[in-house]
């Protein structure tokens, strides 16, 4: 079972993904840690950039440009966010 901070992160990530990938409420609700781009037709390379932008705004941080190609799964995004948010 996921911890409270992880659930909060997931909720924020879902909101960002719904906006950037233009997902329906049902598709957004189905997003989980194991979701990858091949499971969502809207998760294109252009949408991926917009997702990164949305995440940076939502969580008030900036990813290293070189690492964004590796953020292509919800699990990787959670990991990157936790890494940045951990002092």
């Amino acid at each position, binding site marked *: 079972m996921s911890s409270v901070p992880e659930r909060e992160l997931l909720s924020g990530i879902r909101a960002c993904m719904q906006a950037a990938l233009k997902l329906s409420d049902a598709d957004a609700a189905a997003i989980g840690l194991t979701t*990858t*781009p*091949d499971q969502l037709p809207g*998760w*294109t*390379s*252009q949408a*991926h*950039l*917009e997702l*990164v*932008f949305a995440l940076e705004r939502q969580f008030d941080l900036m990813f290293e*440009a*070189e690492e*964004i*190609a*590796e*953020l*292509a*799964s919800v*699990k*990787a995004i959670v990991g990157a966010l936790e890494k940045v948010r951990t002092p």
Partner: protein
Amino acid sequence: MASVTPLVVPQVNVNDETVRLARWSVPDGATVAAGDAVCDVETTKAASEITADVAGVLVQSAIAGEQVAVGAVIGAIGSTREAAAAFLAEPVTVARPAAGNGATPKAAVLAAQHGVSLDQVRTAGVQGTIKETDVRRFIDASAKALPAGLAKYFVHDGALPGFDAAIAANLRRSTQGLILTSVDMDCRLNAAHALVQEAQAAGRMLSLLHLVIAAVGRSLPSFPRLTSLVWEGSLYRHPAMDIAFVARSADGRLFTPVLRAVDQLSLAEIAKASQAAALRAMRGSAKAEDFEGAAFTISQVPVPGTTRVVALPSFGQSAILGVSSERTSVGWVDGMAVAQPMVTFTLSYDHALCDGVYAASFLAALVKDLESPRS
């Protein structure tokens, strides 16, 4: 209240009406201090550094390498990035000092921005001084002077925003020197899709664009005429596989970041570098040189239903590859009709440098490579 100061091209030589914007010294969106060098301009006889008059956030509206008019606005420095960008999006952008011609600085600047001679502008104010409102009235009046058959159907919508104008100027300058024609070829994407799916399932963002960049890097060296230029009767060749690709920001701006020596990069390196370059361009943190010196450009229009993309080469290039959206077509495999994912490549090229057979041969090599991509 947000304040904005335009960045105006100075008169470097008395006789020059245009200068070349050689390079930006700071990236778009950079915070500058008063007196900081922001860009270099040059003519055939002289070079000059432009410095910031005020401190603030610089937003660029012209592209390095462009020929720009003396007095033209090539950017703005605002107390915030948003303020500078909003200023540049407005038709009232500034330029050229009055130089004793009886106009206020704002009027002279507006006139220069719109290519209006102040001699043509009538004054409504006292002492014959031409004011900004006089120039604005003249521009509006001129804008209505469309051919009679058109004027009644159109309304004046202001000047073309600076960023769009810069792109238009680049393409106009480029295409004036080229004999442009194009050739198409379809490509099956079964193998490409398998690679993309495998990477994405493993949590790595890989797309068709990355595969195309890699395949172009492998195919293009055998077709040097597509990375050559004719200039004043001489032939010049770009020896490096420096490939630009078109990226679009969330607000619809187009950028063409350049990946260097693509033929020496792995697919994973291309995917990583191209996404990083696109993100820097979209954030406004890219440097001027990140957009300079490409040998070739790839322009993908993934809007569903797009069957053919006839793109225009940027200045300094003679060919560009348009990539359509993906579609499903019926093909024949071992006598069976099967649905196949397809894309259409359109190569726009300079017929002064090569003919249709040469251009189509490049596409054939590209398609062959992509139909059996390597990781």
